[in-house]
């Protein structure tokens, strides 16, 4: 009997260009299990050197079109820490609302457009729309995604790349009446998010997903008194608890001999996972009341080490996002334009935000003229690659009875659990240029 090879040339329904290469030996042993990222590198950390401090947040959001908010907000806070710039409460709240708008868009995109088709047996959400029964669900999903986008448009001027958020604040702020209109729409969308959690729980309970559990370290932020989105301490399910700017010391990239991939590990320990499941595991008590209630209703409890529960975690976070956005709009009230004012100073600063798919780390050095001397970027997806390959090692042997086609789909779903951004991840993944066969 010869080897079995599961090979996917260009993984669908993920951001960027990645490939799966798995070789299973005649006795069911895993000879090779790799997630290869083919995205060409763009060298952000090199060309940011010599650019001005105000260009860093503008440029790094172009690392990824799906999570630009995460990169932008981490970078702008890192620059502000480096130069000692303080921002007002209004700015902090608007930044949170902005990021929640992105979460709503991104989590909906993932659940309905990128992941659900697999569970429901469709090749895409566009195909799902062709089914009369599913069409209303697809339309509601698109409507919720639009709402998340409209929050971005209202606060930053565009669905994707921000126009108004700068070091020190905003160049323009939305009006209270526009925010109130968004609030109305959020209230109307609440029921659909609850239905999303129920749907996610139902489809993730199908065989074989419930058995695919693997304990590993889940890393996220945790903030005092609120669910982490734009800041907090770096924590984990294994007891990590450090200030966020210490991330370079605690989250390490290790070269492992004989292996093509750089491994992201927690100092002194092993691979880890970032993303919604990690956040929910570490911060369940800080979720909104209704988010906690719906989680209990569908039988979801923490900690969960089943990566196929990420879709449920995303649904729960959607409910939480709606609730929190509604509260934030009440707290923000009628924003007043505040001209960003600060001095340019030399310094060093690091910051982390929780992009929809996990911790996004930025930081570096600015000189006295405001010119960047060094910048470090670690995107969430690159943290997950090593962990995902361990998922392959653990789960694939349990699924050998499936046909090649079914097994391939399950492997793709394992990757899609992480909602990966391969463009972001390109930085620390070794690109395997030698194709076998």
């Amino acid at each position: 009997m010869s080897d079995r090879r599961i090979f996917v040339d260009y993984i669908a329904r993920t951001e960027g260009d990645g490939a799966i290469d798995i070789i299973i030996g005649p006795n069911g042993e895993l000879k090779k299990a790799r997630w290869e990222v083919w995205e060409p590198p763009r060298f952000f950390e090199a060309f940011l050197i010599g650019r001005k401090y105000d260009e860093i947040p503008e440029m790094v959001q172009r690392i990824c079109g799906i999570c630009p908010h995460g990169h932008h907000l981490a970078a702008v806070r890192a620059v502000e820490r480096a130069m000692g710039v303080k921002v007002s409460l209004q700015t902090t709240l608007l930044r949170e609302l902005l990021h929640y708008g992105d979460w709503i868009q991104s989590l909906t995109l993932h659940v309905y457009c990128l992941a659900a088709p697999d569970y429901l047996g469709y090749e895409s959400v566009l195909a799902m729309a062709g089914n009369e029964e599913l069409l209303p669900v697809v339309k509601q999903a698109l409507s919720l995604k639009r709402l998340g986008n409209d929050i971005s448009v209202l606060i930053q001027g565009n669905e994707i790349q921000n126009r108004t958020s700068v070091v020190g604040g905003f160049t323009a702020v939305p009006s209270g009446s526009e925010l109130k209109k968004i609030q109305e729409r959020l209230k109307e969308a609440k029921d659909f998010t609850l239905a999303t959690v129920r749907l996610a729980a139902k489809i993730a309970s199908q065989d074989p997903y419930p058995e695919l559990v693997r304990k590993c370290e889940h890393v996220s932020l945790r903030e005092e008194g609120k669910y982490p989105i734009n800041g907090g301490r770096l924590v984990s399910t294994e007891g990590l608890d450090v200030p966020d700017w210490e991330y370079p010391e605690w989250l390490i990239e290790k070269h492992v001999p004989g292996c093509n991939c750089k491994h992201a590990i927690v100092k002194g320990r092993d691979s880890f996972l970032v993303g919604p499941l990690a956040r929910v595991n570490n911060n369940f008590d800080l979720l909104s009341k209704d988010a906690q209630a719906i989680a209990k209703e569908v039988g979801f409890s923490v900690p969960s080490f089943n990566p196929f529960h990420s879709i449920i975690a995303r649904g729960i976070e959607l409910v939480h996002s709606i609730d929190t956005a509604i509260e934030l709009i009440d707290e923000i009230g009628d924003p007043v334009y505040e001209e960003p004012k600060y001095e340019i100073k030399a310094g060093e600063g690091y910051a982390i935000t929780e992009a929809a798919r996990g911790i996004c780390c930025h930081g570096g050095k600015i000189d006295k003229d405001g010119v960047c001397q060094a910048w470090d970027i670690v995107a969430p997806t690159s943290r997950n690659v090593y962990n995902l390959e361990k998922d392959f090692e653990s789960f694939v042997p349990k699924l050998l009875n499936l046909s090649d086609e079914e097994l391939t789909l399950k492997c793709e779903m394992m990757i899609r659990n992480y909602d990966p951004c391969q463009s972001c991840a390109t930085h620390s993944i070794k690109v395997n240029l030698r194709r076998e066969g």
Partner: protein
Amino acid sequence: MAKPTIAFFKFSSCAGCQLNVLNLEPILLDIVGAVDIRYFVMAKRENFEGPYDIGFVEGAVTSPRELMELKKIREECSILVAQGACACHGGIPSVKNFCGMTQKEMEEKVYTELWDLKSFPAHGIDYYVKVDAYLKGCPMDKDEFVMLVTSALKGLNPLFRYHSVCNECKLKENNCLVLTKGIPCMGSVTAAGCGAQCPSLGRGCEGCRGPASDCNAASLARTFIDLGLSRDDVVRKFRKYAGNTPEFSKGAEAV
């Protein structure tokens, strides 16, 4: 009449322009109904080989593998559209062309191991192949995308007008950021079509849509110096989204 076949490709970019297609939520299903999307890996698992009637390419070309793919795409697509600033002019990936480091220095800075990466200066796709239409901007403008699709469905050239962003500011009666606040706005030399999105929100135009037709970047560069920018700052302005273009190069070299 058979629905036109459409394909979406991605090179070195952030995928935001492709995502913007999915951001057409209210009319997405109408568009999907009017065309036959044959290749869109980010949204679909079933994708088909060419040829295609219309191909949208997002991203700059930075590696030999992309270049080879681009040539194949050009042969397979009757109409080829450069989607977004990266594909039109090089975009943010082209910043590395002007950062002063050699390719080797950049690789050493970013990757702790040296392996044969074969990355070369980033250019828009028309540096290598003929392009039939451009969707400028970072990200591309959703309404322009719809206009292009509708024009293509009718077999027409959409005839976009690439006059300056200033015109759009005037129609909205915005206070001119250069004149009232001394902000170095690139709008006077940048192609319109975005509705002056940034200046309308108090943010000086950064030139993400590339040069307006027959613009005078050298003259604007001189104005920036008068506004108090240093020479390095002026160069940074013109070497951001479309630094590869001859027009913006004139601006960078004028000081």
